[in-house]
């Protein structure tokens, strides 16, 4: 399974037949059963640190899988919009790599997992860098690396980047953005601290705004699956054929997702699920099956570590059932590919 050769975009008849195959896929039964069973798990709490997130219906639950040949198999609330939150960090990091090149990015943000919580104010004592781009400090420093003549251009470029991954127009939820910005004292403090150490430039306040904006982008579980499939497909959106990131940079994004993507559950996630993934406090998780496809899950109740309860369970079960662990030698993703291409019987 080489990730260097993206699948060619599909023709119209192919797309139609693909949709029919998806609708008829036995994997849909797996998602349906999983959805029904995990819906009964009402543990976890919806994030409440801003009122907009607290409004989420804890019953929302969407499961979507998109393959590198652009077929989507999904079940549940897959069209319910929610804010992308920390999931954006992985994609903005990829954009910083594209804009500045690996070494320049590494000079500002490390790639070392921390056992600390997402909002910890910890910098590397020797280099003053935030540990990695998946903790808030690292994500804010990463935002500072996004190119653009002025703030509006930087915002437009970032939105366009996410649009390319999703394959559709996307928008910022303004009230979430304003709330994040009004209440983001801790993030503001981190930005100032990093500015003090010279890890952020003169435009650090604008970069902080950009960070609040990136977290407030509205996506759906379907979108997350396509975004994951784009990374799985060497950076080319399988639905549109548009390139979102160079194949070279995909591996850096994915390795950070694997080691740091699930807050302070990242180690156990890599061990048990074995898929590069990123979660957000609104209840979204994107997981990538390299060379095979992307998984998008949305369910707002979070566990103590800030990951979607049903999302973690769904990814864990899918990984075990289809042998998706990316370090499982010899079988990675094959069972899912077979199930996806198999007819019902």
């Amino acid at each position: 399974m080489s990730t260097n050769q993206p699948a060619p975009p599909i023709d119209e008849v192919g797309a139609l037949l693909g949709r029919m195959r998806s609708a008829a896929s036995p994997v849909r039964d797996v998602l349906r059963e999983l959805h029904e069973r995990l819906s009964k798990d009402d543990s976890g709490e919806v994030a409440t640190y801003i009122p907009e997130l607290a409004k989420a219906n804890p019953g929302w639950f969407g499961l979507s899988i998109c393959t590198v040949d652009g077929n989507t198999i999904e079940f549940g609330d897959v069209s319910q919009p929610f804010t992308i939150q920390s999931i954006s960090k992985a994609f903005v990091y990829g954009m910083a790599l594209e804009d500045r090149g690996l070494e320049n990015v590494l000079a500002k943000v490390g790639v070392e997992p921390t056992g600390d919580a997402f909002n910890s104010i910890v910098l590397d004592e020797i280099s003053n860098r935030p540990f990695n781009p998946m903790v808030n400090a690292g994500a804010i420093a990463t935002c500072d690396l996004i190119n653009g003549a002025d703030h509006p251009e930087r915002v437009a470029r970032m939105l366009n980047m996410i649009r390319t991954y999703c394959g559709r127009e996307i928008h910022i939820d303004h009230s979430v953005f304003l709330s994040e910005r009004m209440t983001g004292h801790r993030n503001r403090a981190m930005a100032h601290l990093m500015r003090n150490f010279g890890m952020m430039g003169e435009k650090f306040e604008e970069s902080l705004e950009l960070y609040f904006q990136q977290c407030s982008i509205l996506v759906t579980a379907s979108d997350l699956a396509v975004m994951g499939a784009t990374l799985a497909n060497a950076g080319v959106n399988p639905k549109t054929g548009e390139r979102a990131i160079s194949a070279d940079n995909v591996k850096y994004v994915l390795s950070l997702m694997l080691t740091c993507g699930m807050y302070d559950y990242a180690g156990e996630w890599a061990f048990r699920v074995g898929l590069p993934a990123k979660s957000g406090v609104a209840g979204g998780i994107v997981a990538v099956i390299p060379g095979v496809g992307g998984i998008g899950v949305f369910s707002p109740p979070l566990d103590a570590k800030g990951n979607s309860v049903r999302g973690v369970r769904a990814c864990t079960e899918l990984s075990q059932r289809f042998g998706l662990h990316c370090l499982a030698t010899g079988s990675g993703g094959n069972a899912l590919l077979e199930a996806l291409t198999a007819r019902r019987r």
Partner: protein
Amino acid sequence: MPKIISTHSFRGGTGKSNTTANLAVLTAKRGLRVGVIDTDIQSPGIHVIFGFDPKSAKSSLNDYLWGRCRIEEAAYDMTEGCIGQVHTGDERPRLFLIPSSLRTGEIARVLREGYDVAKLNDGIHELVEGLNLDVLFIDTHPGVNEETLLSIAISDALVLTLRPDQQDFQGTAVTVELARRLEVPRMFVVVNKVPEGIDQDLLREQVEAAYQCQVAALLPLSNEMVKLGSGGLFANRYPDHPLSVSLKRLSDELMTS
């Protein structure tokens, strides 16, 4: 292992619904549990042949698709009227019909809003499991649309009905190509309404050359069928008619292998 069989025609008027209804009854009479689902939501009709009064339907396929009922609640046991008396305790033979709604509002809603074909797929499989069916026939809307393609994608066999008519010939080629691309395991081409005096061997040859697949049956144009006007089940009314015999043979072929 339950079988799903879709019947399809590229154009209307090929006798697809009559063929499906009769095949379903002949198949059930082998001692099987058979379902017939009318996915022709835009222009439902197969219920007429079974003598089913749409007013007596509390729920239809439409209700399931809009989430108003479980699919089994839209299934009606037609065994007595179509096969005859069966002991209440006997599980086989049984014949179930899942009709589409004839209410104008329901049809308009489908045209306006469409529906999720994946949900139709879920329903079909819940139906096969819930009613413990041996065979499910799917009667589709003529032409190519999402529900016909879905039924092809999930079927073990596809029965393609056409008349000896140039428009049917050309159109059916489209369905054959799509069915091949959807990798339907078995395809049965049925040439229906074949008039007397036509060179059957030549017709068979032409069709087989055009689609690169065998013709499963050439069904004669029958005056009795025309006169029946969908007012009943032909194979029950005229069991010894050459048409019924051919249909019976087709049912045998569908069930073997």
